[in-house]
């Protein structure tokens, strides 16, 4: 329900003793992942919500100080497992920034391809789960079926559906095959029709609109002050998109729009995500026919990327390079300095602060997790709304607990 004027102010209710304390989570189907909220209720209105997080804390940043630059990519998969490809790209984007490696054009195009597919699949799951939580089951099934097709593309691409670990320092684990192009083309051809169906299902659906419009309104000032980025900031009128503002990879080559809304409620966040799917499709359509030829890895001779298996087994130079990069007392030439690099992940700005210390293991691998930063918004967004609005707000924020707790 939209916020009404009759809501009691939080200061007045602090003294009231009839408040109900309700524990929401950590194992609740609507949280989707493991997070806990301690709610103080006045009737059905939420007076105060206190998030209690850390149930999935697994020390990913500590592990980052013990795994080398190529090994750590497997851990980034597990941070935001809804769009692991985007995390892979973000991690190696930061590492390549530290090591000053310029990627080949083909590699840049393929990385954009996978990041945009990851964006589509992330938005599909986010909007789908949000629809599921407020009662639109068909929408979720449509979304998940299309996500499944993106998993298929990733499986053809790198053999893994969920934990891809596709990128490598200075390149990719393997080149794309004609089958990948064919599957992507097929997806691009048939998916827009499903997307139209999906929009027809929810955009003017009375139940869905009633439950999300005016719920969890985030003003532009609050979005800025709470460091919101990505679709959540754009739904509140902040036009920031790193793909446009600080172009990385080859995003400058493509024509696409930054999707924004002004109202900043859950419905606006849903609309921005749906519009971004269309823009991603636009990028993919321009990209898929124009992937440049050439190598996917930067030259193996300079010891900036792992050589291919053929080179390792058939040439002595390949064997030497492989040995030099893999052995634990050797590795890349790393400066004794630190750098931050970020990409526009489906969820917002996803950056890594990497500190190099001349060894082949990062001295510090800090992840700037968008989920963590967006979840700190939640107590403010839900204040004054009803218990049933919690799922509508949580769904629109797209909180991934593995990334939240790392």
């Amino acid at each position, binding site marked *: 329900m939209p916020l009404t004027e009759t809501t009691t102010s939080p200061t007045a209710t602090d003294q009231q003793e009839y408040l109900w304390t309700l524990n929401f989570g950590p194992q609740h189907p609507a949280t989707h992942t493991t997070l806990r909220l301690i709610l103080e209720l006045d009737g059905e209105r939420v007076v105060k919500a206190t998030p209690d997080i850390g149930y999935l804390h697994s020390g990913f940043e500590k592990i980052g100080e013990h795994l080398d630059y190529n090994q750590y990519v497997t851990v980034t998969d597990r941070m935001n497992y809804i769009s692991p490809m985007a995390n892979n790209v973000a991690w190696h984007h930061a590492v390549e920034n530290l090591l000053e490696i310029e990627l080949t054009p083909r590699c840049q195009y393929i990385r954009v391809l996978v990041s945009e597919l990851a964006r589509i699949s992330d938005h599909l799951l986010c909007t789908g789960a949000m629809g599921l939580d407020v009662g639109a089951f068909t929408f979720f099934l449509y979304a998940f079926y299309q996500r499944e097709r993106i998993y298929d593309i990733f499986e053809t691409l790198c053999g893994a559906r969920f934990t891809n670990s596709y990128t490598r320092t200075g390149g990719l684990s393997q080149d794309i095959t004609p089958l990948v192009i064919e599957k992507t083309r097929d997806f691009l051809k048939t998916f827009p029709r499903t997307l139209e169906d999906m929009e027809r299902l929810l955009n003017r659906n009375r139940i869905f609109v009633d439950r999300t419009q005016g719920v969890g309104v985030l003003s532009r000032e609050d979005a800025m002050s709470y460091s919101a980025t990505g679709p959540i900031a754009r739904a509140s009128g902040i036009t920031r998109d790193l793909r446009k503002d600080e172009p990385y990879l080859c995003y400058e080559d493509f024509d696409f729009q930054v999707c924004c809304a002004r109202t900043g409620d859950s419905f606006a966040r849903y609309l921005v995500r749906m519009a971004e799917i269309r823009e991603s499709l636009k990028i993919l359509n321009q990209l898929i026919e124009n992937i440049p030829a050439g190598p996917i890895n930067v030259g193996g001779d300079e010891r900036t990327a792992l050589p291919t298996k053929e080179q390792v087994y058939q040439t002595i130079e390949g064997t030497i390079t492989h040995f030099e990069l893999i052995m634990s007392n050797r590795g890349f030439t790393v400066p*004794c300095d630190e750098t931050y690099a970020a990409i526009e992940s489906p969820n917002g700005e996803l950056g890594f602060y990497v500190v190099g210390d001349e060894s082949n293991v990062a001295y510090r691998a800090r992840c700037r997790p968008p989920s963590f930063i967006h*979840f700190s918004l939640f107590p403010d967004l839900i204040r004054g709304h009803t218990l049933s609005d919690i799922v509508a707000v949580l769904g629109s924020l797209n909180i991934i607990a593995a990334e939240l707790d790392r």
Partner: protein
Amino acid sequence: MTTIDEITTEVQSRFNEIETSQFRNQTRLRVPASQLLEVAQHLRDQHAFDLLVDITCVDYLHYRGATDRFGLIILLANTSESLRITLRVMLNEPDPTVDSLTPLWHGANWMEREVWDMFGIHFEGHPDLRRILLPEEFTTHPLRKDYPLQGFGERHNFPVIRRSEA
């Protein structure tokens, strides 16, 4: 349209003891702990660094050539002109304390709680400086370099709640 170099010169002329450095086109300002709040406020109000991107920390215990123990990293961004700047505050034991940025950005709240949790940096003026990811009864700060990867055995020493007492 101002460039990042003009901003750093202006900040340097206004505040004392600020060192700048450049690496991979990123500008870093090294700020004394006592001036952090003023410098951050100046950057936010005068130079439109309106987005607090992240607050994090690095423990330089075993770092080559490091003289200070902790480096608090504050990443700021100017969203209208797409500029970025990094503030670094060097802190030392036994009292790693710095002013909290929560008066300037709400978002600093959880980021500072995480830094407190992981590194034990104390933020003066923080409204709610509790542990965020680790349980309350945890006694150490695990992202410090003197904390071993496998821990000090906290897991094994957690009190076990039996069914009869639950």
